[in-house]
């Protein structure tokens, strides 16, 4: 199956539902299901790797690249998107109201994951960005519109800078194909100044969406103010695609000095994110800053650039997507029930609603990196790889990790605080059926990946290897053939 269908179907259905309001809700469901199935079955069994668009062979034309990394991330992104859409299907008219936006977002996210051309990436980034601005504005009240506007501002600045970087690079290299650029950059054909400036600009541009400091000022407002499904998509599926795009491009065309800068910025992101998250009183804000920190962790590993580091990065990305999906869903449940999500409201919530409590523990401990959960495996790689740079790096990462563990445990304790004397709670709060289903599936996956043995993990290493070495190899082949 040509993966371009993953992009084309949602886009086509988006056009249809823009003009034909009645079917818009159905269009969204159809597209989400199609993408989820195609993402799993169509992609995993693909053997060919490069699909050209429009008949122009790469590198003259745009091509879609399917390597081990995309084979891993495409299914996960599409399935999570499907879960997100299904989660609030019964309640939310927002999914029908905004179905066009969701469809376009789905198409663009798949495009970001698949494309192998820098400008095509720009186009998809912009489309995803516009959808993100719209998704961010879906919350109630005017706060979300203001947050969306601020996001738009910095997002546009970011894409400006990215475009400038791409243009400079094109001017020097003559091609926009990522693999070919990788080969050219590594062979030293392009002057150091050019790579430096273009890499810096590209880091800035992609960093805005990837939540890298100091480009991530938009994150707290957007993640806290937007509506339910939008937050789920923005917090779990978007980071997967965006950070993957960041890794893909930077590992291919990044200047070595800029990679060091990326390490620095990544560590700063982690530290700042964790420290701020420590002091937050609302669960949603804590999760928003924690997302920033997790992205920072994934990105700093990309900056280090070894296969081990990028393996850790991919594992952390996936763990973040799964866990944050559940955590934000839990937060939604709580706000549904109680209207607020500060610590006082949450006291003993886990005892009144044990399923919510258990899923909270599983996802929180996974992000905190406790053994028996998936997040621990990623963290191990992260710490092990961080020793490759200077010694200060692991110390800072570990300090941030200690802070993170502490505040996550604080939230877990809040959930399970024995309120008054420990008696059976008067009223059991039942979560929605969708939450039960998805929570069960995702928790099982997290624990399963946490305790499974080595064979399952080679897929992460292969994904990392394809990012670090595979792209370059393809580029060299192209260059050699020309």
């Amino acid at each position, binding site marked *: 199956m040509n993966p371009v269908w993953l992009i084309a179907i949602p886009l086509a259905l988006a056009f249809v539902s823009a003009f034909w309001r009645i079917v818009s809700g159905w269009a969204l469901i159809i597209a989400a299901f199609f993408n989820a199935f195609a993402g799993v079955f169509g992609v995993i069994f693909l053997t060919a790797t490069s699909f050209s668009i429009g008949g122009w062979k790469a590198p003259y034309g745009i091509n879609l690249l399917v390597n081990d990394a995309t084979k891993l991330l495409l299914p996960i992104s599409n399935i999570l998107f499907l879960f997100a859409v299904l989660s609030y299907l019964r309640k939310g008219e927002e999914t029908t109201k905004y179905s066009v936006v969701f469809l376009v977002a789905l198409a663009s996210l798949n495009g970001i994951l698949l494309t192998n051309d820098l400008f095509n990436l720009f186009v998809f980034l912009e489309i995803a960005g516009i959808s993100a601005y719209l998704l961010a504005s879906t919350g109630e009240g005017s706060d979300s519109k203001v947050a969306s506007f601020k996001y738009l*501002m*910095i997002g546009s*600045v*970011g894409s400006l*800078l990215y475009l400038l970087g791409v243009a400079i690079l094109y001017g020097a290299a003559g091609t926009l194909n990522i693999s070919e650029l990788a080969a050219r950059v590594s062979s030293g054909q392009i002057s150091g100044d050019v790579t*430096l*400036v273009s890499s*810096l*600009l590209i880091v*800035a541009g992609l960093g*805005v969406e990837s939540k890298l*400091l*100091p*480009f*991530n*000022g*938009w994150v707290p*407002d957007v993640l806290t103010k937007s509506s339910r499904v939008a937050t789920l998509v923005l917090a779990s599926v978007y980071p997967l695609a965006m950070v993957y795009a960041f890794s893909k491009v930077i590992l291919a065309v990044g200047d070595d000095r*800029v990679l060091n*800068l990326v390490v620095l*910025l990544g560590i700063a992101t982690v530290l*700042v994110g964790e*420290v*701020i*998250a*420590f*002091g937050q009183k609302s669960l949603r804000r804590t999760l928003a800053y924690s997302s920033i920190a997790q992205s920072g962790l994934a990105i700093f590993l990309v900056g280090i650039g070894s296969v*081990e580091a990028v393996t850790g990065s991919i594992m952390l990305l996936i763990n973040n997507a799964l866990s944050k999906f559940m955590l934000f869903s839990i937060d939604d449940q709580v706000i549904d029930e109680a209207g607020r999500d500060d610590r006082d409201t949450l006291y003993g919530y886990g005892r009144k609603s044990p399923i919510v409590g258990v899923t909270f*523990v599983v996802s929180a*401990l996974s992000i905190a990196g*406790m*053994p*028996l959960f998936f997040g*621990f*495996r990623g963290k191990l790689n992260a*710490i*092990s790889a961080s*020793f*490759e740079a200077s*010694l200060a790096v*692991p110390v800072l990462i*570990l300090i941030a*990790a*200690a802070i993170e*563990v*502490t505040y996550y*445990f*604080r939230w*877990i*304790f809040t959930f*399970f*605080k*024995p*309120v*008054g004397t*420990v008696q059976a709670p008067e009223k059991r709060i039942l979560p929605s059926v969708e939450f039960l289903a998805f929570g069960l599936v995702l928790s099982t996956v997290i624990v399963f990946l946490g305790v499974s*043995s*080595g064979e399952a*993990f080679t897929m992460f*290493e292969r994904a990392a290897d394809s990012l670090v070495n595979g792209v370059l190899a393809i580029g060299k082949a192209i260059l050699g053939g020309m």
Partner: protein
Amino acid sequence: MNILFVLAASLFAAPLFFLISKWKKSVAYIAYAAFQVLVFLYVFFWGGTGASYEVVGITSKLNFNFSMNPVNWFFASIVMLIISTTAVFLLPLKKSPVKIFLLSLVTAGVLGAVFSADFLTLMIFWEISTWSSLLLIIQDKEKSTGEAIKYAAIAAIGSYSMLFAIFYMDSRLGTVEFSSVALKIESQPIGVQLTIFIALAIMVLAKMGSFPLHTWLRGSHSSAPDEFSPILSGGLTKLGGFLLFIMSIVFPSFKVFGNLPLLNGIPIVNYGLALLGGISIVVGTVMAIRMEDAKELIAFSTVSNSGYIVLALSIGGTYATAGGMMHILNHAMASAAMFMAIAAVAYMTKTTRMHEMGGLIVKMPFTFAVYLVAIISVAGIPPTSGFVSKWLIYQQLVQDGLPFLAFAAFFGSIGSFMYVFKPLAGIFLGQLKPEHEKVREAPLIMLAPMAFLTLLTIFWGVFPSNAIRSINRITESIGGGTVDVTFSRIVALTGQWDSVLVTTVFVIGLAISLLIFMRAKKARHVDLLDNYTGGDFLYTAELYHFSYRMYRPFDRLFEKWPSMENWLSSTSEKIKELGALFRAVFFNRNPQVYIALTVIVLVGAFWWLR
């Protein structure tokens, strides 16, 4: 002995017990207790002979390495003893599926940790038992969440410090197995050795509850569910002893740091660690004397005894090492017995505040006997085993000429007389409160494990050679010296101790005094309130409970001492303030601020990088 099978069984037992207890709680708890007892017997009677090695591949780089040599056997026996006796003990207490699940996870983690052969395996299993114990602590009492967060924070500090050490070792030495690291670490530069040692030491101090990372013990031990405190104090903290033994004795740490300046013949790094242990002894003792709640008091006693273990294993030398190892055994038994006795009393009277009780010796004589023997052991009085370990440590201290540490150790012993007596007097002696008239002795199922621990304490007090021979086997296996011991006599540096002789004298003395007591006139029973003062009769019993504020003059003496208790909360306040600062800078509500930041960072980076 097949450790992998036992470990796998333990891990799978956790969800299994959870499911069983959903159906019928008592069945699950009995199954859990039976399982733990079986594991204990299996481990103990294996005897630590033969050293085999099992490797379980996890990823291409990560392996679980387990070994089964005498060191593992020693620590495994101790923790399994505590866990199995507690498992039987807690059968009458309130049950819940969550608790049995978490308890099983804790024991699985502990089991994996004591049989580990490399630091990463140790770390992973230790972490499993840490997070499950954190969740277990908050199950019962409302104030437990505030206390448990301190444990979480300090445990995080320790764990990440150890993770740092592990990966530093991996990047420098290429291995994290105990024996390989011991070999390779000698050839590393001093900076590397010091970093690894100190990072591991932080973990030891944090997990054993030793100064300066001791502030979590008081709250966690006291607010944990009563059935969990013995395991927490007698089992989990001893894992720190395991790590300390590895890093201090198995590593040739005295040889490795031998090039550093020596203080009284001990390298300065080890001496520093021993010093922290000494301070821990003093702090723990002083604070214990000032406590009003029995469990908090025992928690500080744990701080103090962890100090002894740290001290003993840090100063090195045959006798201190043997004493330290034996103290791990003794303190595990004694503190578990103490917590169990308090739990039994609490089960019967529903309180642990000492001045609310009294006179329970007549109602719960067996519990009293258990508690008495346990505190005698903690205080280090013969014929209990606690004496032997302390005596060995003193031998080494005096022989090595370490005045300050010896002072701390002696102070701890003398001070411990004071604090162990307080619960004894407060709970068991004195006058029985009217509301406790109906209290009966604890059920047999609780008494049996307590009695077992008591008997072991006395047994190893009268025949310490039994335990010391095992310890000799261990120290021999890693190339250390052995303690000269015959059937009843221990020959040490400044003298010898014949336990059988002393016990015989003790028994004879006891017999004589018993005779005198029985021949004398019987005491007359008087009610507490059958008294008058100042011409007026008494009405409020608790004001005449002499255990309330028992050591008030002592308390006043140490009132002005600086307290470490608040440094955690002030650190967390500082982090929150820092967070607010970061927020104002990086996440300012005005987007122009962060757009400006973007431009500045870009321009700055360009200037810096070209």
